[in-house]
């Protein structure tokens, strides 16, 4: 909301107060300053009103140029070159004379151009820094200015405009009235409410007025009819300039007056061409699928949720949002009806949202407008139309009734308790009075002002007191929690795993959890991982799906790093995944204000699908950079499996490894890791087609662990560590090539008995031929209480080998 200082000054005497102090005051009471525009600060005259005496068209140039003779009341005329065409002989224009400096440090001097001497410049609004309008030069209405008059003063150029941000609960501050009251309160100045003048207005009604009726969606409606409007009456300069200063365009007197009153008081008004209203106006909901064209020329299809203003024939306005083209004020309009309605804020919010149409009117009405304004703002508009447009009053139609905010009981102690302050009752009462409340300091009943529908509970009043007293008056005290808190085991584990992976050379990434449909297909996801959620309003139509797996994001991050020159690296991510695998129920919306019962709470929690936390990693290129020590080697499937095993080892978990055919991994090079028989991780080489499709180096590897599926390990029961001598035995076995190392190892373990302390596969040889391979293991034996004899050791080793022979036909390699 743009607030011109000069306008505020009508209601608060700002003499001697700097712009900086005003800006700080706005911030202190809760209005962020988005901009402070010092209009005219970079403009110096002479800037004068001139009359166009003659126009010579210079046609020989690329664009038509005018050579204009101007009377600036200097005794003799002067000539200027002008590119604009929106003026005629006898018009009053604004001329910058040599010596003037316009915004942008644009100095005006006499100069030769287009083969002529130009002795000044005729100015547009934009050239003077008054607005964005550069469609033509400023043409002043006849009678509004005298030739030679100083235009800086005439156009009220020198002004400061505070552009403030107004929060949704402070609709009243979307007006000069509201903003001026805030400034007065913040600076402890006297505020004169402009409504006092409007309240004093009286009009003589006749009975031929156009009626208005509320069928739905409004609290109070006032319609004032005026005849004999002179459509030729221009807006006076003071009016149009104020409209421009707040960022609107001056259009016609009737429209300007409604806008002016809206800005000044905060009540949106709409002026209808009364001649086009059939019978009277009704506020009601639209009929489904009826068509209606708004002022902006857009045809809109209405729905039964749209609140409209209509006559007996057709819809005339999208209520509180935008008027209709058919009943618009035109250059021939001589009779008007000024509508001021306190619409239901929710109805207007819906109108605005459904039609994606946020207007000056809807922004105010959806925040709730002072109900008393319908009467007084429309009166003020009528007054201006009578005095400026020569209109005569016809009559007033009113329907509905104002309802005001309820009285609030408040204990001053409550205010101090919530703020941590020690304010006196007088200070609290004065602060509440400053914002417009009536305070009974005996009963502490507080009656909020008509414009503060947001003041409903004592806490709302606490904020008002704090605002006026100043948030800086609140002391700073550190509270003491009665608890000793730690991370949960799951949080601690996640943090430790991340630190361990970082220490092992992996770099963490955090990807957006959005995925493209094409990626889901390319990665060949099926089952749970194909069951995703679709975002109804995605940021990008390319990635409308929620990730079901971390691999797509990791691939994208790898691609980005590759494209920026990285070659060898490992990335990991820890984050939630989203699978649409539980039955979705309709959203639950229990009433507010008291706690829902336990069943409802559980149902709400259960309505949210589980979103487990996964760990994913991708390994690209070589395990090290090229170096002088070793020959760098490429990542291979085993590196990914090892990293997954390391994570499970860190968590103290026992697991088994099985071969798995699981997209998007290589069907022959994917390990599934199981804890308690449940798959918790997959690791290995990515499918060759995935690597080629996504531009990853061949044989890139990846792993994914469902961290939420990992059981929290029990407290470790420490085993006795034996100190008797160890006995080490190597065995090399020959088995069929399809016997897995893990299976053969388990067979040896199963046969070796309790004396076996550890087993390590130290060699694998696959050149034996005949479909056979050799696997060699080191078995370490130890007894807790004695040195093992040679016989015992041999017996244990042979038992191990015998079990491998029995289960897998293993023979000892000779």
């Amino acid at each position, binding site marked *: 909301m743009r607030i011109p200082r000069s306008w505020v000054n009508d209601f608060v005497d700002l003499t001697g107060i700097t712009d900086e102090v005003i800006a700080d005051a706005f911030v202190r009471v809760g209005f962020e300053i988005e901009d402070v525009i010092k209009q005219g600060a970079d403009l110096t005259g002479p800037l004068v009103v001139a009359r166009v005496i003659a126009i010579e068209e210079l046609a020989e140039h690329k664009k038509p140029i005018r050579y204009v003779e101007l009377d600036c009341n200097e005794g003799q005329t002067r000539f200027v070159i002008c590119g604009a065409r929106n003026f005629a002989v006898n018009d009053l224009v604004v001329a910058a004379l040599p010596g003037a400096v316009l915004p942008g440090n644009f100095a005006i001097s006499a100069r030769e151009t287009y083969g002529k001497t130009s002795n000044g410049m005729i100015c547009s609004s934009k050239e003077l820094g008054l607005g964005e309008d550069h469609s033509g030069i400023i043409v002043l209405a006849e009678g509004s200015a005298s030739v030679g008059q100083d235009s800086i003063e005439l156009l009220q150029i020198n002004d400061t405009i505070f552009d403030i941000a107004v929060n949704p609960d402070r609709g009243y501050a979307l007006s000069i009235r509201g903003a001026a009251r805030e400034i007065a309160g913040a600076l402890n100045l006297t505020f004169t409410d402009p409504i006092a003048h409007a309240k004093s207005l009286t009009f003589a009604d006749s009975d031929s007025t156009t009626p208005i009726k509320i069928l739905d969606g409004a609290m109070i409606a006032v319609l004032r009819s005026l005849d004999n409007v002179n459509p030729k009456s221009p807006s006076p300069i003071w009016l149009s300039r104020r409209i421009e200063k707040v960022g609107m365009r001056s259009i016609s007197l009737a429209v300007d007056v409604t806008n002016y009153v809206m800005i000044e008081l905060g009540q949106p008004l709409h002026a209808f061409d009364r001649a086009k209203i059939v019978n009277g106006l009704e506020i009601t909901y639209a009929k489904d699928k009826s068509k209606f064209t708004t002022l902006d020329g857009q045809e809109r299809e209405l729905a039964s949720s749209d609140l409209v203003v209509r006559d007996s024939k057709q819809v005339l306005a999208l209520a509180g949002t935008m008027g209709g083209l058919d009943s618009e004020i035109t250059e021939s309009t001589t009779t008007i009806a000024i509508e001021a309605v306190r619409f239901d804020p929710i109805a207007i919010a819906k109108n605005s949202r459904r039609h994606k149409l946020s207007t000056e009117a809807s922004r105010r009405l959806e925040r709730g407008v002072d109900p008393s304004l319908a009467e007084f703002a429309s009166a003020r508009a009528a007054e201006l139309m009578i005095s400026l447009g020569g209109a005569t009053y016809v009559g007033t139609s009113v329907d509905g009734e104002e309802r005001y905010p309820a009285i609030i009981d408040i204990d001053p102690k409550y205010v101090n308790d919530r703020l941590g302050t020690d304010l006196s009752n007088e200070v609290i009462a004065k602060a509440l009075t400053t914002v417009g409340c009536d305070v009974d300091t005996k009963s502490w009943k507080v009656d909020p002002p008509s414009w503060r529908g947001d003041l409903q509970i004592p806490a709302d009043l606490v904020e008002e007191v704090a605002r006026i007293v100043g948030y800086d008056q*609140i002391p700073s005290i550190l509270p003491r929690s009665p608890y000793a*808190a730690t991370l949960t085991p799951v949080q601690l584990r996640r943090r430790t795993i991340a630190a361990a992976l970082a220490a092992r050379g992996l770099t963490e990434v955090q990807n957006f959890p959005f995925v493209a449909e094409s990626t889901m297909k390319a990665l060949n996801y099926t089952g749970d991982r194909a069951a995703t959620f679709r975002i109804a309003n995605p940021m990008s139509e390319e990635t409308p799906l929620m990730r079901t797996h971390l691999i797509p994001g990791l691939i994208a991050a790898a691609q980005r790093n590759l494209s920026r020159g990285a070659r060898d690296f490992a990335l990991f991510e820890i984050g939630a995944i989203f699978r649409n695998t539980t039955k*979705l129920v309709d959203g639950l919306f229990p009433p507010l204000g008291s706690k829902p019962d336990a069943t409802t709470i559980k149902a709400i929690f259960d309505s949210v699908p589980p979103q487990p936390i996964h760990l994913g990693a991708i390994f690209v290129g070589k395990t090290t950079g090229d170096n002088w020590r070793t020959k760098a080697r490429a990542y291979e499937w085993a590196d990914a499996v090892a990293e997954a095993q390391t994570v499970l080892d860190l968590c103290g978990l026992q697991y088994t490894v099985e071969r798995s055919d699981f997209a998007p991994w290589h069907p022959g090079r994917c390990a599934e890791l199981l804890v308690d028989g449940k798959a918790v991780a997959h690791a290995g080489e990515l499918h060759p087609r995935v690597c080629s499709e996504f531009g990853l180096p061949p044989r890139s590897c990846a792993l994914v662990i469902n961290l939420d599926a990992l059981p929290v390990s029990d407290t470790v029961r420490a085993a006795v560590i034996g100190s008797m001598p160890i006995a080490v035995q190597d065995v090399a076995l020959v088995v069929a090539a399809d016997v897995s190392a893990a299976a053969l190892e388990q067979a040896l373990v199963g046969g070796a008995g309790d004396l076996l302390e550890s087993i390590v596969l130290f060699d694998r040889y696959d050149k034996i031929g005949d479909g056979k391979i050799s696997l060699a293991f080191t078995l370490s034996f130890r007894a807790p209480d004695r040195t093992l004899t040679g016989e015992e050791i041999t017996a244990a080793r042979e038992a191990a080998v015998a079990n491998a022979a029995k289960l897998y036909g293993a023979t000892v390699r000779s």
Partner: protein
Amino acid sequence: MNPQEINEWVSAAMSAFAAAGDLDELKAARLAHTGDKAPISLASRGLGSLSPEDKASFGKIIGEAKAAIASALADETARLETARDQKILLEEVVDITLPAKLAHAGGLHPITIIKNDISDFFLAQGYSVVEGPELESSWLNFDALNIPADHPARTMQDTFFVEPLSAGLVLRTQTSPLQIRTMLTNEPPIYIVSPGRTFRADELDATHSPVFHQVEGLVVDRGISMAHLKGTLDNFARHMFGPDVTTRLRPSFFPFTEPSAEVDVFFNGRWIEWGGCGMVNPKVLETCGVDTKEFSGFAFGMGLERTLMVRHGITDLHEIVEGDLRFTRQFGVGL
């Protein structure tokens, strides 16, 4: 055999040892002067044939002589071993500055680092760290927080909705639903922080991202006032931005707090908007079953990306979200 002769043997042995240039020469000298055929060895063996008196006196002299030779031998052995070692060590000198590290440099994402840091800071003050779903119930994300369906406040937060719309699921626009979840399932006193990922339908640019992170804090206890909020934020700001930072509260609006405030920090010579805060709106407490006669609370929330950008001088949010190794590795593991 006489004492003088024995002394000469000792002298001869000592000078021979001293003359040895390396351990091999020393070995030869040792054999010559202490071996079986060395005079002292022969004399030692000949002691048995002497009279008891001579045996005693010469035995002592020979014993002392042997000890002296052994001592000299040990000294010279040590000298020559040291010399040998020095020579070898000198030959083994390497260029110790050669790049030794082979493994890739790893690192944690700065968001993880700051999450951990903030969590630890509040854990130490007795706050639990709570986490929860990113795809969240609309009622928990909006209604229970006093953000009614058609209130302009809801459009302040451009929300991602998930199909089917009837399921009422949204990508949480704030971590505040965790406050509701906590209050619905725990009795006060409540002291929690909730660092987590949040979503708003904003285009990605230098200062906005559709996916970002927040940390929120919630305290519900007896006698909690805005002064406690201020004290907590002052302390938190000093932890994030250094001991000299100052804060200010400005009136603001959030449906779930009343009074509401923005908290700014004065950092590097200017005021920076850091986050929002306020006293938990009694309407919210009532919906969560908290007795507002006995308990009151405060809440605050700030963006982690924003905090990182201010603290580390990051000027473009793209750097934080793009996952470029070179960016992330600058932060190590946050030590």
